[in-house]
């Protein structure tokens, strides 16, 4: 099914995108729906984009639900391990 549920947020960082070039990303969309490439019926999909540069300025991830949760945990663990003095917004 198409879940139609999309969570969007702003981000500030960079991603390596089409043709191997880095670009600044400002937006993220997160949704659980049909993947384009991953061999699964549904995946947790993340689009990191810069809408001002057009639709192709996008880095896309399609992760199984298990691996998405593992990634969330890994991100959390990595952030938790950072000394407070090093954390920058």
């Amino acid at each position, binding site marked *: 099914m*198409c879940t*139609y*549920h*999309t969570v969007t947020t702003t981000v500030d960082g960079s991603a390596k995108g089409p043709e191997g070039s880095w670009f600044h990303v400002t937006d993220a*969309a997160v949704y659980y729906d049909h993947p384009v490439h991953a061999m699964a019926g549904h995946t947790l999909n993340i689009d990191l984009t810069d809408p001002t540069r057009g639709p*192709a300025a*996008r880095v896309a991830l399609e992760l199984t639900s298990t691996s998405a949760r593992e990634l969330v945990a890994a991100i959390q663990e990595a952030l938790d391990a950072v000394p407070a003095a090093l954390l920058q917004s």
Partner: protein
Amino acid sequence: MSDTLSARTILIEGDNGDEIQAYLARPDGDDRRGGVVVIHHLPGYDRGTKEMVRRFAEMGYDALCPNLYWREAPNAAPDDAAAKVRAAGGVPDERLVGDVGGAMAYLRGLRTSNGKVGVIGHCSGGRQAVLAACHLDLDAAVDCYGAFVTGTPPEGAPFRGNLVDQLPDLRAPLLGLFGKDDVSPSPEQVAELDEILTRNAKPHEFHSYDDAGHAFFATDRPAYRVAAANDGWERIGTFFRAHLGG
């Protein structure tokens, strides 16, 4: 009937008079024939959908798929366009009806048209095919596992709700093709749709397949089920021959 056909990208007039891109496939020859509007699924105006458009031309119909994402993402790759439109909130129902209406009018305006036009959609397009048939003078509609014709959509969906309140306005016979293992639409939701259409004396024909879930027509996805898809294509052919001619 010749199996020679041609396919190309064109511009048509969509909702609100907007110019939008569309993919057109037509059999060769001047004989009169029906038309089919193909609504692409939420992942976009992609290769798989265009293959279906050409298949309808091979079956003897003039077939046209409007690019529902053209306004937001002209000339973008289908997956990038889908991502952009999703992040922006999706395609509103009113605009969808206008775009399908534009495609319908284009097909009826072809010199080969016999005046009859059907619509088909898969997944999100299945719901949109039913929606279009509630508002436009179409001659046949095919809903392939469209979610939220009945049932409750999530908050934040690009449409106001399911189509239950609009089903009494359905103007075309409906063919529904579903997988028994699907969860949206679930067999219970399909049964509810069947009951509503029966109660409103709306002509419809439903087939639900064993060992098939959502997206069983998608030949490039793990959900593909050859037996269900082959039978489904046969049902579509019979249904369109009955209602569109050919």
